[in-house]
């Protein structure tokens, strides 16, 4: 019995060693629940206004992980769910939650005035920042992120189709992950905790 156990342990250790070696060779020691965008050459920066009219770029948040979600405040379903999850992720990170900055970029700057944006993001977490640009800059930002959005008429008004991924940057300002809308907060927090670890 003991003998068998020892052999099994040895085998396990050997197997683990082999896995570790393979991992080193491939240089992919960390896996994520989200879509790994490490090495992405797009979405290298943003240049948008916050509700106080101050221009913001990614450099403003250096040293923090950044979570970016594109949406619009008249969205009854996906946007509040994504921002509620972002607040939950921040909570799950505990003290490290202070090292996660959530940015909400509107794809509907015509209706999402600075006042609406400010009140909207604050309803989820006072640290969240809503960002907007004019139509041209909004389009350019979405293009930089490969984000899709489109105005869709309904009744006398319109709604917006839009990409529902949350993009995550590491504290060095490099795009690292896209979190799917369905990914639970716990899994998102696990992913972001890995990015917050000192390299």
């Amino acid at each position, binding site marked *: 019995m003991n003998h068998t156990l020892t052999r099994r342990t040895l085998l396990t250790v050997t197997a683990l060693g082999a896995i570790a070696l393979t991992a080193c060779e491939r240089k992919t020691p960390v896996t994520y629940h989200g879509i790994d965008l490490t090495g992405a050459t797009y979405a290298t920066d943003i240049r948008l206004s916050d509700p106080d009219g101050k221009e913001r770029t990614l450099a403003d948040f250096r040293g923090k992980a950044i979570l970016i979600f594109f949406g619009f*405040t*008249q*969205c*009854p*379903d*996906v946007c*509040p*769910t994504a*921002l*509620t999850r972002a*607040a939950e992720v921040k909570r799950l990170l505990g003290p490290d939650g202070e090292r996660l900055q959530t940015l909400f970029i509107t794809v509907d700057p015509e*209706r999402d*005035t600075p*006042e*609406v944006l400010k*009140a*909207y993001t604050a*309803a*989820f977490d006072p640290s969240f920042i809503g960002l907007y640009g004019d139509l041209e800059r909004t389009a350019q930002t979405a293009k930089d992120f490969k984000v*899709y959005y489109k105005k*869709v008429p*309904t*009744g*006398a*008004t319109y*709604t917006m*189709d*839009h*990409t*529902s*991924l949350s993009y995550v940057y590491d504290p060095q300002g490099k795009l690292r992950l*896209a979190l*799917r*809308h*369905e990914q639970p907060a716990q899994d998102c927090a696990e992913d972001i905790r890995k990015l917050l670890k000192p390299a």
Partner: protein
Amino acid sequence: MKLVIRTAIVAASLLAAAAQAQVTVKDAWVRATVPQQKATGAFMQLQAAKNSKLVSASSPLTPAVEVHEMVMQDNVMKMRQVPSVELPAGKTVELKPGGYHVMLMDLKQQVKEGDNVPLTLVIEGADGKRESVEVKAPVRALNASAQPASHKH
């Protein structure tokens, strides 16, 4: 006290629904808005005694009320008005985030947490007869999740 009133309202609307259309409405709620936010969604559970469908909804809050479906395609969220939502006999159909909702648009005023939003649902039976179901949907926080008993903060 607030809870008691809310329960009473829900109970009253349940009774009203049962008496009229044999459609019961449970856990109806509307997501709160911030000032100047012109749209939001109403969610609920519907159960019809006989095969029927939800064909439209209205509210004194705004003339622009539509029944919508949210669809996720390749990580893109799309929201579309649907002509109706099937209510198969005895089956609970949920209008919830990630699926169907009643969309309230062109709101003239803020919808505040704790308010009650009157909604009229139009249900069409298999025989083509239409009946109205009155619902008073309590307003939950903007960051309320799909679960009725959310424990945020």
